[in-house]
């Protein structure tokens, strides 16, 4: 998909935004009864990613993963249904929004910071065993780079020469802790030296620049070994829905969400002689309509049957508890 047309690109960005907004309605309606993390403001990175990821590549993601799932080509309906805790969800409602698994598409997520990286290492090693040039993508937040799992994974991937592409969405915050207070280095890309791999920082609001950077990393990974892309962005909402988000300067936050919205930036760029504003409106409407329809449909689905709650602890069918619960 490397030559994605701008109209496809723009529509996908809007679709991603609408998808996350649909998720927000689930929190308000209590259809989603746990915490929810959205990536509103970070769409350009996911779109750029979608332009380089092959069906046979793997992708592991984190607690903030919906857009990566879309980028990987996970069908939207079971994705949204899982987030909405429905029986029709991609994990039957057992996983929920932080725990998404699609074996065929080599996609998974985890709610534990840093824990997705070693899993990606496994996928990368599997590609090596198969003699395939399929790469393993791991998309992580800036906070995860300070966890031990990042380090162990990068060192092993490099020493084994594995095709691992780590995309760091540096949204400058790990919950309330600013990036600058958590990182010894001014950029995360420069840490790549410690693993003898290429590292590059890019403006993650700029879909073209991000796509180019990811393209370079992927090309390296398919033949030579791991690479790191640090894409700068900003989280528009609280860390999770319900987070009061009082730790960020409210003035700066308003300024950035207003003047640095990747969708607004893209529209402005495209309106300037690349695509007809009427077409842009149509793309927006079509994306919105798709998500509206999807949401309406998913809302009709049922929750999983409570009687199935003890199934699947062991895929062999072994019963979970060997005692006799009262």
């Amino acid at each position: 998909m490397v030559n994605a047309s701008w109209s496809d690109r723009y529509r996908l960005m809007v679709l991603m935004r609408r998808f996350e907004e649909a998720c927000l309605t689930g929190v308000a309606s209590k259809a989603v009864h746990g915490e929810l993390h959205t990536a509103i403001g970070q769409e350009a990175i996911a779109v750029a990613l979608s332009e380089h990821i092959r069906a046979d590549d793997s992708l592991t993601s984190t607690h903030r993963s919906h857009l990566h799932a879309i980028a990987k080509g996970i069908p939207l309906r079971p994705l949204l249904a899982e987030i909405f805790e429905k029986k029709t969800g991609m994990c039957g409602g057992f996983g929920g929004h932080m725990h998404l698994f699609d074996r065929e598409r080599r996609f998974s997520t985890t709610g534990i910071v840093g824990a997705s990286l070693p899993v990606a290492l496994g996928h990368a090693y599997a590609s090596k065993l198969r003699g395939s040039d399929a790469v393993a993508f791991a998309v992580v937040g800036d906070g995860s780079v300070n966890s031990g799992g990042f380090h162990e994974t990068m060192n092993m991937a490099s020493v084994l020469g594995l095709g691992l592409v780590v995309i760091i969405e540096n949204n400058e915050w790990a919950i309330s802790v600013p990036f600058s207070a958590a990182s010894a280095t001014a950029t995360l890309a420069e840490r790549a030296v410690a693993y003898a791999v290429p590292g590059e920082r890019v403006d993650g609001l700029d879909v073209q620049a991000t796509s180019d950077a990811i393209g370079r990393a992927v090309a390296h990974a398919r033949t030579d070994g791991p690479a790191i892309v640090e894409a700068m962005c900003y989280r528009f909402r609280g860390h999770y829905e319900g987070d009061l988000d009082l730790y960020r300067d409210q003035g700066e936050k308003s300024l950035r969400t207003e003047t640095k919205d990747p969708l607004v930036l893209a529209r402005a760029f495209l309106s300037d002689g690349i695509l007809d504003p009427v077409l842009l409106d149509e793309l927006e409407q079509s994306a919105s309509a798709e998500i509206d329809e999807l949401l309406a449909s998913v809302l009709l689905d049922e929750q999983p049957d409570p009687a199935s709650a003890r199934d699947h602890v062991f895929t062999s069918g072994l019963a979970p508890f060997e005692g006799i619960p009262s």
Partner: protein
Amino acid sequence: MTITEIAPRNINISQAVAEGLRLEMEADEKVLVIGEDVATQGGVFGSTRGLLKAFGPQRVLDTPISEMAFTGMAVGLAMDGYRPVIEIMFVDFIGVCLEQVYNAIAKIPYMSGGRVDMPVVIKTAGGNIGSAAQHSQTLWGLFAHLPGLRVVAPSNPYDSKGMMAAAVRSNDPVVFIEHKGLLLKRASDFTFGASVPKEAYDVPLGSAAIVRPGSDLTIATLSGSVRHAVAAAEVAAGQGIDVEVIDLRSIVPLDWNTVCESVGRTRSLLVVDEDYLGFGLSGELITGVIERLGMGAMDYVGRHGNPGVPVPAALSLEQAIVPDAESILAAIMRAGAAR
């Protein structure tokens, strides 16, 4: 010390914990609070709110997401005479740093032949609030299995403040497990332990409390399940079963006196445990009572809790796995029928 009873304050449990910490930090400058989001934000549930302002960024330290590093840091600090309180945001994350907890914090007192103590509090939140398998565990059974750790889990505002104070004062390491479903509950939501004095006080670690006296069946439980058990007991009372509800408060050590005295009277024991039932609290409690009172002392034993299942995401499934007032009532009725 005398505790002045003042007009009850409607603070929530997080505030009670933060107040307990603040008073201990005022009393002893060696007390530190270290963890993710504990300073500027004051904790994701607010249970360290106000401490940064009161004690500054050296004593209240926001960390990177580096649990292994800051848990081990507590070991060095404790050896150097400090009393660190480290926060592992959710107990589910303990797997990334358990090594320092059980091989260092828990064992150094012993490995040093009693020469080095480890006055460390591992403060963490357990219990479910709808966030599925990796964010809903309680895991006290895991910590309790490993030697060298005191393990406590309060159920109400009064105990939350007083047990945190006691944990900070303890020279033994303490795993202090808050319940995510309780932290934002206010004093007025509780029928027990609702009144929180402003002054410093402590609730001694290792003692259980009888939250509701009764004569027919002893329920031993703790943490988020206590209020469910009390609610269930009230309903059961209407149906002729008089349930005694014991809030264990401490898992290590267990307060055998309180439990055995109660079971000695009721001759029936039901353990209610939000943690995974297998290889945990319930087996230990039932076996320990038998060891102390003999096999003839009880007419009924039972246990009710998470049947060894990762907590599912969907509410419909979650309700089938995590004990609540309704499921506890059903367990009481089964016990009543079985006796």
